[in-house]
């Protein structure tokens, strides 16, 4: 049995007009509607950071959540972090 990667299948199907999967930039009115409500100033700030810095920012945010969420829930503050 022949096996094909998804990219090969997409390439073969394209001439017949079959879209197997949406591409990253395929337009979608629902996504356009969501885009209008997104604060891209935060994103632009993130884009000025390195991957390493973005990772550190996520670590800091999750530590903050882990520390303070138990104050409003019954969660164990010692779990995981």
């Amino acid at each position, binding site marked *: 049995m022949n096996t094909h*990667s*998804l*990219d090969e299948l997409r390439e073969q199907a394209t001439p017949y007009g079959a879209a197997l*999967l*949406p*591409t*990253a*930039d*395929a337009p*979608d009115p*629902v*996504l*356009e509607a*969501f*885009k209008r*409500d*997104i*604060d*891209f100033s*935060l*994103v*632009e700030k*993130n*884009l000025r*950071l*390195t*991957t*390493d810095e*973005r*990772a*550190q*920012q*996520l*670590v800091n*945010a*999750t530590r903050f*959540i*882990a520390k303070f969420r138990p104050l409003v829930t019954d969660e164990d503050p010692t*779990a*995981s*972090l």
Partner: protein
Amino acid sequence: MITDFEKALAVFMEHHVEFIVIGGVAGTLHGSAFITQDLDVVYARTRENIRRLAAALQPHSPYLRNAPAGLPFKWDEQTIRNGLNFTLTTAFGDLDLLGEVTGGGTYSDLFAHSKEVSGFGVRFRLVDLDKLIVLKRAAGRPKDLPVVAELQGILERRRKQSAKPPEK
């Protein structure tokens, strides 16, 4: 449970597990402002990698997430071979291990759509932004819609940036 990303990735690297980070963490590393609490990875289904993955997680109490307490579950090579995608809790937090992902296929399929990056104190493979959007769209989950919209915005900004003529 919130995942200790540094610990989780260190465990994978220490055991030389072949994996690609996808999901919310990938989104964050591409610039998303959404905060994720678990780690999603696609792992290679080779015999050797399954052996490494079993050994890597074994000491960290992996258990099926949302399974009733007391349900017998043994984390070993056989379990990984018999299954494909695992949603786990571990001592370092929630972890989704995917042998195959909708819209992206297997580790080998995704490999060409990933690159090595530095973060969380290690270097590891991260799915590229285009593919991440395809994965999120293919998953078809309503909760992902704002995230996909934001990722598309990032993609548009990147393309605009790379299309700009170099400054003199």
